[in-house]
């Protein structure tokens, strides 16, 4: 699974940067085409939900998705053959 921010919905309130226990979200620096500074992802492969959602069959943490007022955060299945990066923090 892959963590995705929907740039068409995000309004740049940066609430996700506050709640993520892994601090994956960082406040963005550049405004996008709509003039909104969307948060950046810092090594999103660390997200526990991305790695273990399929194994456990349920959403594990999901705080960013729940608190996002604009419904802009979701997890996507990787396309077959897409390169994936794995990083596990102990």
């Amino acid at each position, binding site marked *: 699974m892959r963590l995705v921010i929907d740039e*068409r*919905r995000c*309004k*740049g*309130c*940066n*609430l996700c940067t*506050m709640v993520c226990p892994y601090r994956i979200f960082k406040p963005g620096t550049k405004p996008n085409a709509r003039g*909104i500074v969307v948060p950046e992802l810092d090594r999103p492969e660390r997200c526990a939900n991305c790695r273990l959602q399929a194994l456990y069959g349920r959403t594990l943490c999901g*705080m960013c*998705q*729940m*608190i*996002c*007022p*604009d*419904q*802009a955060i*979701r997890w996507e299945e990787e396309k077959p053959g897409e390169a994936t990066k794995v990083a596990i923090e102990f």
Partner: protein
Amino acid sequence: MTYADWLREDRLPHIYCAGCGNGTVINCTLNALDRMGWKKEETIFVSGIGCSSRAPGYIVTDSLHTTHGRALAFATGIKMANPALHVVVFTGDGDLAAIGGNHFIHACRRNIDLTVVCMNNQIYGMTGGQGSPTTPRGALSTTTPYGSQEPAFDLCELASAAGANFVSRWTSYHVKELTRAVHTGFETPGFSFIEALVQCPTNYGRRNKFRNVMDQIEYFKTHGILLQKVKRLREEGKPIPDDAIVLGDFVQRNRAAMGVRR
């Protein structure tokens, strides 16, 4: 199914300001709804007027956007006409506590089988930041430029006294607890009232020293105090901070309810 299936994708992004907590409450409500496994045809969302009351427009089920303060009156009508429907009411604090105050206490008294989610942003957000009955003492708004002098309504105590079956209060920071509370509200027969304190960065936060969205969320996080702890402090005779936000399930009882199929 996930909560995203209940959203009207073509209507998004919604009109709420950046950082408005109403979107978070929609997420929590839809997550709880998803756990219940209700059908889309059997669920109805009702709302009055205000920022919070725009919410049913983004949900795929049938919905009613009614007159100011009368959401509960319309919801009562729906429930009485067809008790098989699951009726959920989204309202704001100005809608429920100010103009709809009488409908609110009588709906609690009748104990109709509704679930009311009140998004309390402590101000009239949509009309430009006028003080509402839940504006805390000392808070600035356009109608109270020197600080509100009136004591605020405690909606949860009001609902408990009027006779609701399930009463709970959480904030938009406590998303997991809010989801659980809404879920319990759906399961409880009779009137369930869930108050969700939400941040209003544009009209409340800007005037009350919460310049960033995160400041107000941080305030909810640091000033929220559980009901159990308040009871314990009272027993021990210790003081409770004035600005504490009491969170938790206030009432869970089994009074005879109206509109429940036996």
